[in-house]
């Protein structure tokens, strides 16, 4: 059984990231002036996005369908007798396309029920390829192996639990041309029943809208979003397919394409809906995997940082996104450290006083947390302005995605605005610590 851990050469970079966080925590003193600078750095991208969305509204539109229709295969996968794949296949069959297309399901040979489904070709791979103890990224492995048997111009890759809308192929195909390697569809959530699912739906409605449209328009989209995407088979083969040693193969292939001079594009109106984690535990696990994989990819392609040949991506988007991520993680780490320091040192001296005087009437000074007088705190002003900006940006994204907040989404939305980002950053901190200390990867 293979145990996959962060490679030692990567851990060196994680150590550097960790040292930066520690430096920020212990050596930098935050005051309002410094906070304003950080605040401005954060809103810069929001302002850029708002300006781009207003000036270049046609970027969200799909490119016209090509005169010469490319051949396409729709590929999905199923293993361990995964019957819900039938629903996905039903929807795949309903896809609109001017010429017939192949439907292939990559399986481990346990899905015999597929034999009865007409028009579906099964690509049966050895069972060991699906063994998570043998391969770090099973999806990357089976897709690489399965796609060797496909020879069409394009490949529409759909996860087994994802439902494509009928026009998805028509909308994605036009954009997959020239130097575009992958076109990503806008993902929606299929199971928005409980709180955590609703939060993720809000997140998907926001992120699969303006942020990706803007990145796509800047030729800097760095995520292939594996749920539903259309790939150029030629370029997929040219860059060597998915990296089986990385747990976020869709992000890695995007970087691989960008590194080779190709692009990833996004068409928000091409829709597909997927299943998201239903419990906080499974959500945490999924995001931890995304974070660890994402960091690994960033380290692997560190050479793209400030690479002039990658234009906007190398000179702006990558340094900005990587920099703000580290800055955010450092800020949250600093806040957590200071709160814990205050509580524990206070507790320590509380106990010292208790033993010194035999009794104690000291307590943790809550007046530091709750001011006695009502003043609008300057920090609060910054927070307020940030929230207003974020709200405008999020609502603008919702507007692009035709999403309206209903009553049932109010509390998840408040959570999304004020807490969700904090949770994601905590997951980021955990992922850095895990990778630094070589905790094994898990799915």
């Amino acid at each position, binding site marked *: 059984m293979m145990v996959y851990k962060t490679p030692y050469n990567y851990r060196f970079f994680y150590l550097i990231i960790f040292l930066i966080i520690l430096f920020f925590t212990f050596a930098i003193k935050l005051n309002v002036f410094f906070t304003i600078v950080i605040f401005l750095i954060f809103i810069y991208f929001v302002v850029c996005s708002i300006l781009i969305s207003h000036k270049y509204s046609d970027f969200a539109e799909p490119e016209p369908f090509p005169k010469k229709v490319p051949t396409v295969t729709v590929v999905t996968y199923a293993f361990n007798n995964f019957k819900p794949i039938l629903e996905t296949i039903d929807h795949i069959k309903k896809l609109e396309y001017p010429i017939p297309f192949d439907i292939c399901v990559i399986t481990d040979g346990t899905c015999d029920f597929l034999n009865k489904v007409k028009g579906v070709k099964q690509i049966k791979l050895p069972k060991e390829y699906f063994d998570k103890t043998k391969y770090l990224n099973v999806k990357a492995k089976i897709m690489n192996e399965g796609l060797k048997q496909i020879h069409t111009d394009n490949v529409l890759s759909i996860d087994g639990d994802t439902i494509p809308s009928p026009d998805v192929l028509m909308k994605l195909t036009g954009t997959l041309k020239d130097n575009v390697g992958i076109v990503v569809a806008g993902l929606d959530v299929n199971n928005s029943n409980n709180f955590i699912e609703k939060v993720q739906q809000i997140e998907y409605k926001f992120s699969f809208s303006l942020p990706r449209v803007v990145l796509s328009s800047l030729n800097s989209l760095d995520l292939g979003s594996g749920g539903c995407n259309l790939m150029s088979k030629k370029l997929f083969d040219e860059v060597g397919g998915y990296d089986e040693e990385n747990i976020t193969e869709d992000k890695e292939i995007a970087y691989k394409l960008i590194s080779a001079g190709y692009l990833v594009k996004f068409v928000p109106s091409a829709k597909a809906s997927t299943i998201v984690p239903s419990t906080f535990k499974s959500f945490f696990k999924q995001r931890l995997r995304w974070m660890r994989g994402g960091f690994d990819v960033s380290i692997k392609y560190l050479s793209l940082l400030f690479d002039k040949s990658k234009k906007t991506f190398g000179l702006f988007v990558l340094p900005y996104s990587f920099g703000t991520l580290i800055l955010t993680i450092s800020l949250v780490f600093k806040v957590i450290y200071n709160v814990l320091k205050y509580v524990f*040192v206070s507790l320590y001296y509380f106990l010292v006083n208790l033993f010194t005087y035999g009794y104690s009437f*000291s307590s943790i000074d809550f007046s530091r947390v709750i001011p006695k007088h009502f003043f609008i705190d300057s920090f609060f002003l910054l927070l307020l302005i940030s929230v207003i900006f974020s709200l405008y940006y999020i609502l603008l994204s919702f507007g692009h995605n035709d999403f309206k907040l209903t009553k049932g989404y109010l509390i998840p939305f408040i959570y999304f605005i004020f807490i969700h980002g904090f949770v994601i950053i905590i997951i980021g901190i955990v992922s850095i610590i895990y990778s630094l200390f070589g905790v094994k990867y898990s799915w």
Partner: protein
Amino acid sequence: MVTNTKKSVSTNIYLAAAIVVLIIGLIVFFGVLEYDRYKRNNLEDEFKLLNQQILLDDLYSSYLKTAATPIDACNVLEKQANAEFALNRELLDKLKVIEKDAVVKTDNYIKYMYVLTNIKLWINYTNLNIDCNHGKKIILYFYPEPPEATVEEIKSNQLTRLFENKLAEFSKRCPNTVVFALPYLTDIPILNQLIIENNVVTSPALVVDNNTIYDLRELDDVNCS
């Protein structure tokens, strides 16, 4: 290499965004600065008003001594002093909140104003004790001011809290107690004079009945009278 039928994003967008962010930054920075100044000015005005009141007390005291209608001067002046003492304490609390989130630290002008006002009030109370024989228990409490965001600060906060709670307990036991809190600073001449006079070598410390106390347990042995 990059070929797209749509027009590409102009680099002017980044510049425009930078200008917008800069303008927002300047508005926010100067807005916060102005707001801090507004709060400080308000507080300063309140301190000035309080000082005027204390000055008037002295004049009023002289007036009462020569007034045709005899009234209980001691009672009136004590009420005045109590109200001024409470107000001064309240203004200090406000000052702490303002300083906590200020963009630019003050030149300590308002803080010194508080300290001097408190010393004036202490003198008034001491005089009232002598002139009116009020029998007030006057305590000077010197609190430490360690550097912010340090372990020393947290440690000192705990000890200060302990002193304050113990003093509150003492005040309950002896309701005629008046505590004057002063920072342990030597750069204000009158304050330094008090520190030297009372041989205060560290803080937090209490000066009760001309004795300097560092160990709180000693406060239990102090009489109310």
